[in-house]
């Protein structure tokens, strides 16, 4: 029964959602099911929060390696929870929303969490450089084609590309670097992306059918 009931629910929901695409009166069922999912996900927040506290508390108590980070996590978690729940430092008081302008909760979000997130995001610039360095080394024929294409796009997206090839007459303007960059993006690149998208669409259909028919049940914890 532990397997049969979830499989039955999956089957019914899957079939109903497929039918709703073709039967107008059931069109809103997709939205209704996503509301059910949101309700379940809200309860799951408690699971996540509980796990976070339990694992870090246990780590700090046992003085495991890097237990100091667990203390920072716990302090941050409890501080944000308390400030948000009891609206501490909120000019509108307990009845105001926790994200009201000027509230301590919002201030911490704006001046601590956002800059920290931006810092992590900005690391991407450096990682793009290091990944490009590795990817664009002309080790073989394919990598050389990639390098040349990347170089053309890089130049084509800057004014330098026009500066270098702007003198080419209009009848041969495809040879201007910005136009070559546009052609690479709109033709070979787009064709490749669309091929991947078609494959993804078919893969999703196939996997969904496996799940709906109960052939794939690993996500439920196994085949037994």
């Amino acid at each position, binding site marked *: 029964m532990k397997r049969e009931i979830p499989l039955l629910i999956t089957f019914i929901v899957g079939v109903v959602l497929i039918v709703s695409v073709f039967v107008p009166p059931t069109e809103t069922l997709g939205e209704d099911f996503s509301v059910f999912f949101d309700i379940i996900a809200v309860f799951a927040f408690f699971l996540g929060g509980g*796990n976070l506290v339990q694992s870090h508390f246990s780590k700090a108590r046992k003085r495991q390696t890097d237990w100091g980070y667990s203390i920072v996590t716990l302090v941050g978690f409890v501080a944000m929870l308390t400030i948000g729940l009891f609206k501490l430092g909120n000019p509108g008081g307990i009845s105001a929303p926790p994200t009201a302008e000027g509230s301590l909760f919002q201030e911490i979000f704006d001046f601590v969490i956002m800059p920290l997130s931006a810092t992590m995001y900005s690391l991407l610039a450096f990682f793009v450089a290091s990944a490009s360095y590795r990817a664009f080394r002309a080790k073989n024929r394919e990598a050389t084609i990639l390098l040349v294409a990347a170089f053309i796009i890089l130049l084509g997206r800057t004014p330098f590309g026009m500066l270098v090839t702007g003198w080419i007459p209009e009848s041969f303007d495809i040879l201007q670097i910005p136009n070559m960059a546009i052609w690479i993006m709109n033709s070979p690149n787009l064709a490749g992306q669309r091929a991947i998208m078609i*494959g993804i669409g078919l893969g999703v259909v196939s*996997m969904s059918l496996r799940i709906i028919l109960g052939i794939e049940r690993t996500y439920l914890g196994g085949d037994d």
Partner: protein
Amino acid sequence: MHVGKSTSLYLPQLFFLFLFICNFLLLSLVYAQTDDPLLNSEDSSVAIPDSELVVVAPVTSLIAEDYKYDDGKQINLSWVPSIDDQLVGSKVLGYRLFRIIDDGKPELLAKLRCGANSYSDGKLKSESVYSYYLEAFSKNFIATSTRTVPISPEREWINFDRKYLFLLAFIIGGAVIFFIESARRGKKLFVRKIAGLEAVDEAIGRATEMGRPILFIPGILDMNDVQTLAGITILGRVSQQIANYDTKIRMPVSRSLVMTAARETIKAAYQTAGRPDQYSDDMVNYVTDEQFGYVAAVDGIMVREKPATVFLMGAFFAESLILAETGNSVGAIQIAGTARPAQLPFFIAACDFTLIGEELFAASAYLSGEPKQLGSLKGQDVGKGIAMAAILIGVLAETIGTAWNVEFMNDVVRWLTILFTTQ
């Protein structure tokens, strides 16, 4: 002296202030003249002599039609714009659309700009009766159209606009089920080798030999995303191998439901491998829903614990390269898979193996080696065959139709466009 010096010092500022005020007044005048007519189109109560009236003609042929194939919630309106609605020097400044429900009072439904000739009225009730009329207005004149015939939106039970989608879904879905059944009956099926999945055993073995953990990252979306589901199904196969090899797995997640599903999956895998005692809930832990908070935590785990193998399987966004490059920097063998085309180049650049798009969804079936699962992969090939044939025919028909103006080829292109366009 002091006063004089001070006055001369302030003169430039006064001059600029004067310029600013003049500029402001001019701009106000310009804006007053070019105000949006749709926002300032109320009737003037001041009597205007007939000679100054800018008379405009009303719209004609106003028709209200029930939108076919919906749940009785939409009416489509179409009309021929006023003859005074011109692209240049138009006397008409815009239109006001009114709706009357069940012979009640007219209510303003929408303000429309010049050139508008259609409108869709949605969220209606099938038990009510609706009629509409339009007002075309100039700066001092309103021309009202005739009312439409009262109409009720009707509920349809089948959406025939999607008949071709149904046909394609039926063929592809039917092919998948057919091949699953064929495989179940024992028919041998050939599935090409996928390098990334062939390397799974090697990657787990490497971690075992090095005595370092394996990190599994299921993306940052929840269980309602098919990529996360694919990631979890791969986790089931991978963790069975991990249990067999008695290696340590670490799985930080960014969604609570994924945590619960992953725990169940790993627990079942350890039971199947005959090592239930080796399983611990600590293998999977929730970090945060916040995208970059999660990235920071996972990067920290990578740098501190130096995993020998990293699996990145699921839905990834801007964090894909940050995670993959950090994994690369700690010397981990990395196998990634996602169905987000924008993130694939990053994984290809930074990971040892990448499952591209459909391979992510095929991975679980491929790793299981079960005939009925492999049969579903074969069914996909029918879909690919249809796509390839349609692309080939479409390219040929478009080329021949355009180059030699062959009407039949143009019809083929039109038919293919209809077939593959979802309403």
